[in-house]
């Protein structure tokens, strides 16, 4: 059993049980999501481990990661703040909203904050044009959606996430 399998043994067994044994490779997407849960990216080791579990070539697993935009093979921010700036959203002020967020975070588009918490990026349609400005936060194995946003409300979301990280760090220190 490889490292990734050992780390998430229960979850992996549950996922694999959903597919017939000869169609193991169908589990590639759920396993990739699982690998991305802790640090929001899929490491080369996790890639190799998933390939081994599913009896696929590493190249084929990597190809799935490459195809889907919500899988990442680069270690960036713990939270990815993804703002739609397509035309309908732009008409509702998404561009200025995005610029304001970048300014507040002190990074440019695609950049990561120095504390490693946030990566901010422009994305294509999030399917909520009528409630723009809209963004989603991907991290901690979840995707959360925020609609009808202003810079102020978005910053509250960011502050809450930052607070969560601080609390976690404190409780870790306390435990140690």
């Amino acid at each position: 059993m490889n490292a990734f399998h050992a780390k998430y043994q229960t979850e992996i067994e549950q996922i694999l049980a959903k597919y017939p044994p000869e169609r193991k490779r169908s589990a590639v997407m759920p396993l990739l999501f699982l690998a991305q849960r802790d640090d929001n990216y899929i490491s080369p080791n996790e890639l190799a481990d998933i390939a081994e579990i599913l009896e696929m070539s590493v190249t084929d697993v990597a190809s799935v990661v490459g195809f889907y935009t919500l899988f990442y093979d680069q270690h960036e921010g713990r939270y990815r703040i993804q703002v739609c700036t397509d035309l309908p959203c732009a008409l509702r002020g998404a561009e200025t909203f995005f610029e304001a967020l970048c300014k507040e975070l002190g990074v440019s588009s695609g950049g990561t904050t120095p504390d490693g918490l946030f990566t901010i990026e422009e994305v294509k349609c999030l399917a909520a044009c009528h409630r723009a400005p809209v963004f989603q936060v991907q991290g901690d194995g979840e995707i959360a959606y925020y609609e009808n946003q202003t810079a102020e409300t978005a910053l509250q979301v960011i502050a809450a996430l930052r607070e969560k990280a601080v609390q976690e760090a404190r409780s870790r220190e306390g435990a140690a």
Partner: protein
Amino acid sequence: MANQVTLTIDDLTVTVPEGTLVVDAARKAGIDIPVFCYHPKMEPVGMCRMCLVQVGRPMVDRATGQPVLDADGQPKIQFSPKLETSCTIPVSEGMVIRTNTPEVLRAHRDIIEFLLTSHPLDCPICDKGGECPLQDLTRAYGPGQSRFLLDDKMRLAKHVPLGELIYLDRERCILCARCIRFQDEIVDEPVLSFYHRGRSMQIVTYSDPPFDSYFSGNTTDICPVGALTTADFRFAARPWELKNNASICTQCPVGCNTTLNTRREVKSGGKWVVKRVMPRQNELVNEIWICDKGRFGYHYAESGERILSPHVRKEQGLVPVSWDEALDLVEQRLRQAGAGTVTLAGGRLANEDLFNLAQVTDHLGGRKLLHTQVGGGEYVQRYGLGKGSNLGELGKGDAILVIASDLQEEAPVWWLRVKRAADRGAALMVLNPRPTRLDPYARFIHHYRYGEELEALGRLAAGEGELAEAAEALRSAENLVIFYGSEGLGLAETTALAREAAGLLAGSGRAGKVNSGLIGVWQQNNTLGAYDMGFRPEADLAGALSGSGLAWIAAADPAGDHPALEAALKQAGFLVVQDLFMTRTAQMADVVLPAQAFTEREGTFTSGERRVQRFYPAVAAPPGPLADFSIAARVGLRVGIELEGASAATVMLRIAASVPAYAGLDYALISEVSEQWPIIGREDRYYGGTGYDNHQGLGVQLQPDAVTDPDGEVSIAMAAPAPLQVPEGAVYLAPVTRLYDQGLTLKPSMKIVGQRMARREVWLNPETAARLGFGAASLVTLEGEGWTASGVEIRVDEQLPPDVLLAPRSVGIPATGPEAVRLRPLVTEPEA
């Protein structure tokens, strides 16, 4: 035969089997539909859109189900509102295809324009330029000008090594996925894939080592642009400078047909040199593929280490002399030795060489010995594939048994052909002591213990236990092909295995049948030809050599192979060696005669499937060396036998007259060709790739003796191998074959495949290694029967069975068969 379908393509009426794709039907009728992603050896994907055509089908009245007729009583044809991809549509009755209407030509022009928006058009520096489908089709169909902005062109990496053998130019890639599909569908080693999508899509490999496949070079042939190039040929020459010379690969007994591309060049002093090896189509042998060893391993022929003049031993050692002086001495000593002459030939020699050597040896009354660690050729001569056999025809209802062979390592293209037969439904049985790359395609797998191959075969024949089902499949199979190899085996063991396998074939009444028979996976390309010319392996080779009045060694290096043979050669009365290189044996010789390489002369090889195939000279031989058959003829003339020494073709006439199996053969017959499908390598290189069409001969398959001489028998004076006893403290050594070994014919290609070559190492199960007290990567000294090998690295592999040590052949570990060896930690000499 499948039902025939008649359709019309550009006013031409074409009849083809049901299921044929429109693009292929057109190709058969001589109408070229341009393609990029479609390849006749692979499933269509319809990705590139280049093959768009107008498709019309007969109108059918929905109420009656009857065809609608026009005023003339002809079926009315309804054309699709849009163009369709001809590579994804099977033909149907009454279909009308138009490939050259303004709409279709417009589509071709637009697709080319699209493809070129992200193509660098760097043809002047591109290796593919001159044989490039994109270049050709752009000239034929392209718009000449682009409406897209130059600044929007993709700028991507141009020298991406996909491993050290193949380079990718991302800018040139048009994303047709031919390389990905080849690795996936044909080889089933999916080490290439797409990454990202849309305009960001790219080819990637994540395997370790990168692009991990023995067939990687083929992707450069079928790449329709200059995106994939080999490390060997990139920036080496322009295609239009190259001449094509038909040849046969010398690396293994498959006998792949190849084309040697040569050119004259200044940097080689104005000489003709081989620039690359390309596959030449022979659907009966290698189709349009070759393995990477065959593609990159030819450099030995042009090595600077070659012997260029005869040498004779004098006081100061071996000194260069004239041919006359050397041959005078050989003549004198041969006359003295007479019947005490022992000729030892290697399986690298051509049939013509072997025949002349045999004639001279027979004339003197000497012995004709074959240097091989795989035996059983007599059984293959008798029960080999029936004339007219083609592994490409095996499929549902047929059975293939592979025993004691890691086929992908020993003969990659056979591995590919067997795998493809299994894909088509043939029942594949793999009997081997450890898992191999053939197991995934096997219907029946049996891993026996090393040394128990005969028992395993016996259990299969008897249908015992878990092999009952396999035995039934074997019994009921229409055709049966048996491959036997040398996994963990030596001469005596392979001979015994061949006998048992032959018995299995003969007992089932399949001897001599087309598409049935026995195939030995030899370590040299022409071992079977050597058997045919009368050479036989000798169990006590050391005894035969040490007792010889004169040992005449051709294309073999016994001294380099084993210390016992080296010692035996010292006892020989006189030693004559003819070879390409100053091997260890040659260094001991009294006379050394320089031989020509296969690129410099002509001749024939007999493949493991008993196909006699012809190779042609590609480059001029350096002054000095002679073809082995010429050397033998010159020697023959001096000792009183007249042989053909001027031309290989006339030697073949002599062979045909005196070797019954070769009766009626001549070079014209061997050079005959017939139409092959798919049609490749002509003007329309976009269709099948840059591999070569075969104009120089498909070869002639020999009829097995079981057919020509039904009452004949096989007699072999070789003792059955005794089971190996492993004493306390020793371990069972099993010699195994690695494709990239350090043999004479591969080592000069080191700069290309060096990183993948088998090292001086042995492989063990980790528990066995621990029991013996050695960790992975530790260095040991091996002590075998009469030899030691030091500085050998321990490697571990969990898949290996316990209590056995796998030693790759040709890496400096002299084991010739299974033996008990002792391991000692390598003690470095204390510094003085």
